C-alpha cells in the first residue's frame, strides 16, 4: 500500500484536455493551490499526440467566416443532437484557445502575412482548421507540456493510473491510483478533480487509437454513479492506413485528396455530390463500406478489403510541406510514397462522441468532479463529430473545467479525506484476486474476442439481431475466468494494468451495445439497417446509461435546441 497524497486539484490524464486544465487551474490558483496531474502514461505519451490534421476555430470573421457558420456546421454535423448552447459557447471560446496556444509558442502554420493559416476539413463550410504541418496534436501537446513546466504548482505523477474514484454523498473526495513503477496503490485526496482520460479507445481491433487508449475514465465515473451519455455514437474515420490502422488525416482530403475504388471511380459522387470527399465522416465511412460490400473494394494481402486515397493530384510540394507526417508513415510502414502511389485505406474506429455526462461547463452530477475532452460529453458532437472540432473541444473545456475546479477549491469547498476503508475494495481486488493468480483464460485472448465482437456486431452498420448476439458474447466474456495476473512483480507490472483495463473495456462495451440497441433509429454515426431513418419524434434525445449491478439502466433527456431546428442532412 502506498503513501497518502493530498492535492488541491487533481487532473486525471495528461492529454490535451488534461494539460490545458492543469495550466488553467495552476494559473487561477498560483501560489495558492497545488495541482496534481495523474496520468497513466508519461505526460507526453498521451494519445493526443497522434492527432494530425487540424483544430477548428473561426479566426477571420473579416474575411468571410462567421461564428454562425461554425455553429451551424457543428450542429448539422451532429445530426442535430448536439446541445446548441454548448456549441455556441464552444465556437465563441475556440479562437481564444488558438491564440493562447500561439502566444505559448505553438508553431502554427502561417500565411504570407504572418497570421495563422487555416485549411479545409470535412463538414466545415469554411477553411477553419488551424494546423501545424500534419502533427497538430503533437505540437499542441508539446506546447502545453512545455508551458506547464513554467508552473511550480503543477506536480506531475506520470505513470500513475487512477483505478477507482471515491465519491461520498454526491461529493468527490479522491481516488486510488496505481503507481506503475513501484506497483503501489496510493490513496489520493483531492478537493476537486478534472477527469480527462480520453476516449474509450481500443474497443475495436481496427482503430486509429494508440494502445494506451482504454475506457478507464468512462468506467470509473460510471461506476461512481455518473451516467454515460450517448455512448452508442462511435465515429469511424474513413481513412486509416491498411494494415496498421494508423490514421491518414482528413487534411489529406482537405488539401485535395480523392477517394477511389478498385475500378478507379471517384465514388463519393454517388453519396455526397456536393461536398464529395469533404462530407462528414459518418457519411463517407458508410459510403466506403457500401463500395466494399458491392465488390468495388481492393483485396489486400491479408484478404482484408480496402479502397484508395489518391493524393497524386496534390503535387510533391504540397505533400512534402503539409502532409509530411503521413507521407512518412506510408513510406516507412507501408512502403509506398503517396506522391507516386495511392494509399490503401479503410474506415477505422476513431472517436467516441459519447462520454461522461456533464453540463455545459463540464461539471458532472458529482460535486467537485468535472470531465473534459473526449471522456466528457458536453455535448457538442451529438451523433457525429466534425473533424478538427475535438482538439478544440479539449482546449476549450480543458480551460473551463480547470478554472472551475480551481475556483471551487479557492471558494473553500470542503471535502473529506480518503481513508483506509475507501480503498479496501480496490486493494482487495488487486492484491487478493488478481496478483499472482494464474487466469484460466489468457486475458489478451479475451480482449481480442471483445474487439472482434465489437467489429462484427456494433460497427458502421448495426441491427438488432447481431447486436443482441454481441451483447450476449460480452456478457459471456464478463463471466470468463481471465481475472488473474501471472506477473507477480511489483515493478512496472503492465500485465496487471492490462487486466484492469480489459475489465473496464468489457463493461464499457456493454454500455455501448445496450445504448445502441435501445436507439431504434439511424442518426449520425449510428446507422441501423433495421431502422434506416432518423426519428426525431422518439429519439431526438440523449441516451443516459446508469450503472447497476446487472447492467446499464437507460434513460433519455432532450438536447438543448436554441436556433436550429432539425432538418434533413444533405452534403
Amino acid at each position, binding site marked *: 500500500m502506498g503513501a497518502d497524497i493530498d492535492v488541491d486539484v487533481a487532473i486525471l490524464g495528461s492529454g490535451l484536455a488534461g494539460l490545458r486544465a492543469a495550466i488553467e487551474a495552476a494559473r487561477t490558483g498560483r501560489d495558492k493551490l497545488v495541482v496534481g496531474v495523474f496520468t497513466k502514461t508519461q505526460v507526453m505519451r498521451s494519445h493526443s499526440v497522434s492527432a494530425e490534421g487540424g483544430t477548428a476555430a473561426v479566426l477571420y470573421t473579416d474575411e468571410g467566416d462567421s461564428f454562425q457558420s461554425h455553429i451551424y456546421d457543428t450542429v448539422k454535423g451532429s445530426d442535430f443532437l448536439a446541445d446548441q448552447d454548448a456549441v455556441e459557447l464552444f465556437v465563441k471560446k475556440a479562437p481564444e484557445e488558438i491564440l493562447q496556444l500561439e502566444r505559448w509558442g505553438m508553431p502554427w502554420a502561417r500565411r504570407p502575412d504572418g497570421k495563422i493559416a487555416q485549411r479545409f476539413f470535412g463538414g466545415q463550410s469554411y477553411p477553419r482548421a488551424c494546423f501545424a*504541418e500534419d502533427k497538430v496534436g503533437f505540437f499542441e501537446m508539446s506546447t502545453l507540456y512545455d508551458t506547464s513546466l513554467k508552473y511550480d504548482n503543477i506536480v506531475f505523477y506520470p505513470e500513475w493510473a487512477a483505478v477507482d474514484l471515491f465519491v461520498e454523498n454526491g461529493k468527490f473526495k479522491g481516488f486510488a491510483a496505481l503507481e506503475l513503477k513501484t506497483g503501489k496503490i496510493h490513496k489520493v485526496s483531492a478537493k476537486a478533480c478534472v477527469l480527462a482520460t480520453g476516449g474509450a479507445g481500443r474497443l475495436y481491433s481496427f482503430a486509429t487509437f494508440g494502445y494506451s487508449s482504454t475506457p478507464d475514465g468512462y468506467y470509473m465515473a460510471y461506476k461512481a454513479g455518473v451516467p454515460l451519455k450517448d455512448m452508442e455514437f462511435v465515429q469511424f474515420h474513413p481513412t486509416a492506413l491498411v494494415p496498421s490502422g494508423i490514421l491518414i488525416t482528413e487534411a489529406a482530403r482537405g488539401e485535395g485528396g480523392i477517394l477511389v475504388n478498385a475500378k478507379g471511380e471517384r465514388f463519393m459522387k454517388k453519396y455526397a455530390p456536393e461536398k464529395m470527399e469533404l462530407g462528414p465522416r459518418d457519411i463517407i465511412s458508410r459510403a466506403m463500406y457500401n463500395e466494399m460490400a458491392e465488390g468495388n473494394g481492393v483485396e489486400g494481402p491479408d484478404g482484408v478489403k480496402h479502397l484508395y486515397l489518391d493524393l497524386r493530384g496534390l503535387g510533391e510540394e504540397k505533400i*512534402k*510541406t503539409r502532409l*509530411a507526417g503521413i*507521407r*512518412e508513415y506510408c*513510406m*516507412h510502414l507501408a512502403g509506398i510514397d503517396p506522391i507516386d502511389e495511392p494509399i490503401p485505406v479503410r474506415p477505422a474506429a476513431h472517436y467516441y462522441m459519447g462520454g461522461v455526462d456533464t453540463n455545459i461547463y463540464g461539471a458532472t452530477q458529482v460535486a467537485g468532479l468535472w470531465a473534459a475532452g473526449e471522456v466528457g460529453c458536453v455535448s457538442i458532437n451529438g451523433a457525429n463529430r466534425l473533424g478538427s472540432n475535438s482538439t478544440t473541444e479539449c482546449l476549450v473545456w480543458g480551460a473551463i473545467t480547470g478554472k472551475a475546479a480551481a475556483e471551487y477549491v479557492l471558494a473553500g469547498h470542503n471535502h473529506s479525506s480518503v481513508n483506509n476503508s475507501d480503498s479496501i475494495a480496490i486493494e482487495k481486488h488487486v492484491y487478493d484476486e488478481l496478483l499472482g493468480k494464474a487466469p484460466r483464460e489468457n486475458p489478451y485472448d479475451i480482449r481480442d474476442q471483445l474487439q472482434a465482437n465489437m467489429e462484427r456486431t456494433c460497427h458502421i452498420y448495426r441491427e438488432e439481431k447481431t447486436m443482441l448476439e454481441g451483447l450476449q458474447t460480452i456478457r459471456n466474456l464478463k463471466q470468463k475466468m481471465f481475472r488473474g495476473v501471472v506477473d507477480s512483480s511489483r515493478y512496472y507490472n503492465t500485465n496487471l494494468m492490462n487486466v484492469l483495463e480489459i475489465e473496464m473495456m468489457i463493461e464499457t462495451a456493454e454500455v455501448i451495445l445496450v445504448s445502441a440497441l435501445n436507439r431504434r433509429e439511424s442518426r449520425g454515426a449510428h446507422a441501423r439497417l433495421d431502422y434506416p431513418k432518423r426519428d426525431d419524434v422518439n429519439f431526438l434525445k440523449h441516451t443516459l446509461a446508469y450503472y447497476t449491478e446487472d447492467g446499464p439502466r437507460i434513460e433519455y433527456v432532450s438536447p438543448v435546441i436554441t436556433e436550429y431546428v432539425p432538418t434533413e442532412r444533405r452534403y
Partner: protein
Amino acid sequence: MSTLLTALRTWLVPFRYGLERWSYTMQRISGVVIALYFVMHVASTGQVVGGPSVWTLPPYEYAKQVWLETKEFLANPLFDAGLVVLAFMIFFHSINGVRLVLAHFGLILKKPTRPEYPYHPGSMSRIQRVIFWVSVALATAALVYSLDVFFKVLQP
C-alpha cells in the same frame, strides 16, 4: 570501475553511429597521443641542455654530447614507427580540428529546414564529409612521407 568500462566502450568503439562518431573517437585518441608525445618531446629536448639538473648555461660541447647521446638512444625502429603514427595523428587532428572549430561556430552546417523523410541530418553536411576525408587523406600522405623519411620506403 564500471564508469571506466562504459567510458572506454563509448569513447573507443565508434561502430554503427556514422562518420562523426569515427571523427569523435579519432580526434580524442589522436589528441591524447599527441599530448603525451608533446610531454615526452619537451622532456627529451630538455636533455640537450643538460637535463633537469642544469639551470645555467652549460658548455657548448657538453650540450652537443648530450644531444648526440639522446639521438642515439632514440634511434630505434620502434620509436620511428611511433613517429610515423604520430604524423598521421597530427595531420588528422589538425585538419579535422579545423572542421570542428568551424562547425562549433555554426559555419559549415546546413540551415535548419522542415525535415523530409528519409532524414539526412544537416549537421553532417557534404562539406563536412569532404573535410573529414581530406584530413584522412592528408594524414595518410603524412604517414607515407614519414615512412619514407624513417624507413626509406619510397626509395629504390
